[in-house]
């Protein structure tokens, strides 16, 4: 704020003041007042007018200047009320109070949404917990009645889709609800492998692993979900025959690298940069098997939260290799 701008804002008051002064001087002149008295009057009127306007300008300026300064410095602009100067004038009070009210109603509106999101997340978790019970019954029944393996494969697909929803909800939420523990990478790979055993065998995929028994810090369930999604993709996008899936791990500097390789149909060059995008289905996802385009998006989000780097290398018609840098995780160690 500049003095000039302040005067411009108050142009009417300035003009009235100047007009009154001129009128007064003319009147005094008309009544033939002593010339010295006239000069003193003019001087006093102009000086007092100037001082009054300057004083009022400086007062306003100090408030607005600090206000604009702190607004400029803040990245979260809505926190302005915490840094603002104590209001002294009535006008400042109006501004501060209205800011306070606006802020409050906005926070309430946001909290409402937050609560809805949390409630929705809780509902999804409970619902999934509920739906896993009939799925368990189905699997047990299939096993006891010695039903076809195809039926089990369908139930597993259902279970995988449900897990996708669960981990989507978890990955979208800002709070970190994973638990870091020391787990053996070999145990994680074993659990995922057994989960996919029937599908791998049914599709005559040559499955092999070369995993060093190594303790890593991770959330086991999250890592299992990540690897499971990738293996599911490898099974989905396999070639007609002689399919291979290989999982291997090795150490690079302070990191453990996990590689999941398949000799499937691969990913076209034009698609590879976008495979982690939300709802991206790509050429394969549209032509071969229906895909939601969410699987790898969720995988990427979970990896980000756990602090893992994930890349995909692929050559169309040849192979796909997913590389996950499991990190040293020293951060999590106490």
């Amino acid at each position, binding site marked *: 704020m500049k003095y000039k701008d302040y005067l411009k804002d108050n142009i009417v008051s300035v003009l009235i003041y100047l007009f009154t002064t001129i009128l007064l001087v003319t009147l005094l002149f008309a009544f033939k007042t002593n010339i010295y008295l006239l000069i003193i009057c003019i001087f006093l009127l102009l000086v007092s007018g100037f001082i009054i306007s300057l004083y009022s300008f400086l007062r306003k300026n100090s408030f607005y200047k600090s206000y604009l300064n702190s607004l400029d410095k803040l990245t979260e602009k809505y926190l302005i009320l915490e840094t603002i100067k104590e209001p002294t004038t009535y006008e400042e009070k109006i501004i501060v109070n209205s800011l306070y009210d606006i802020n409050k109603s906005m926070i309430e509106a946001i909290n409402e949404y937050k609560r809805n999101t949390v409630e929705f997340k809780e509902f999804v*978790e409970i619902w*999934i*917990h*509920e739906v*896993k*019970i*009939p*799925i*368990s*019954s*189905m*699997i*047990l*029944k299939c*096993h*006891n009645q010695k039903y076809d393996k195809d039926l089990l494969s369908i*139930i597993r697909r259902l*279970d995988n889709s449900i*897990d996708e929803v*669960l981990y989507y909800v978890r990955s979208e939420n800002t709070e970190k*609800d*994973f*638990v870091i*523990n020391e787990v053996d990478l*070999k145990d994680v790979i*074993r659990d995922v*492998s*057994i*989960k996919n*055993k029937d599908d*791998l*065998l049914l599709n*005559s995929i*040559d*499955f*092999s*692993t070369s*995993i060093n028994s190594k303790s890593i810090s991770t*959330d*086991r*369930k999250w890592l299992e979900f990540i690897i499971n999604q990738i293996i599911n993709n490898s099974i989905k996008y396999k070639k007609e025959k002689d399919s291979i899936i290989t999982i291997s791990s090795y150490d690079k500097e302070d990191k453990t690298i996990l590689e999941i390789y398949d000799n499937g149909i691969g990913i076209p060059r034009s698609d590879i940069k976008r495979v982690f995008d939300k709802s991206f289905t790509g050429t394969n996802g549209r032509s071969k098997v229906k895909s939601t385009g969410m699987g790898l998006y969720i995988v990427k989000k979970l990896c980000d939260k756990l602090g893992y780097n994930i890349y995909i290398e692929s050559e169309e018609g040849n192979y796909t290799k997913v590389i996950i840098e499991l990190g040293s995780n020293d951060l999590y160690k106490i």
Partner: protein
Amino acid sequence: MKKIMIVEDDSVIANELQLLLKSSDFDAVILNDFENAENEIIKNNPDLILLDINIPFINGEMLLKNLRKKINTPVIMVTSRENEVDEVVSYSYGADDYVTKPYNPTILLLKINALFKRCDQNKNTISYKDLTFDIGKGIVKASDKEIVLTKNEIIIFNLLLSNKDRIVTKDELMTDLWNNDEYINENALTVNISRLRTKLLDLGYDNIIETRKGIGYRII
């Protein structure tokens, strides 16, 4: 016959579990009175407890904590909640193993067998007729001769011998192999079985592994 107590409030699952366990030669009892769960379990004196976390009246984890003050029966916790917290809590309260619904029934059976084996300490060798099988070393001894088995053959022979009263399905064998990080296919299983047969023939045991077509194998 080992007695297993099923603590599960979903009656369909409980009944199917009972069927599954009975078909694997276990005596399975379902808990009905959840209000007095603790006393009921102690009264039944089972050899192993399958304990669901989400049961009426009392949380499964609390029940486990209370049980541990009185008995040392092996407990496998079962839950349908996909999270690490329950798992950590369960282990800290003294659970011996933990499975998440929906679980693979064969894996559950393997876990149960593994727990029983851990309880019977001197089970490092199995005897069959005049053969002794040292599981740790993978050596099968007859009166004058001995043979060394490969890792896959050890797993297969062990599972067959531990269940010699019934047919062991291909799926059980495969699952046990996969559970020991041997990710082989069914052809490889057939090859392993025939190699095992040849080795046993060297000890003078002809055809003690019988093939039940389409089902599995059995020691005779």
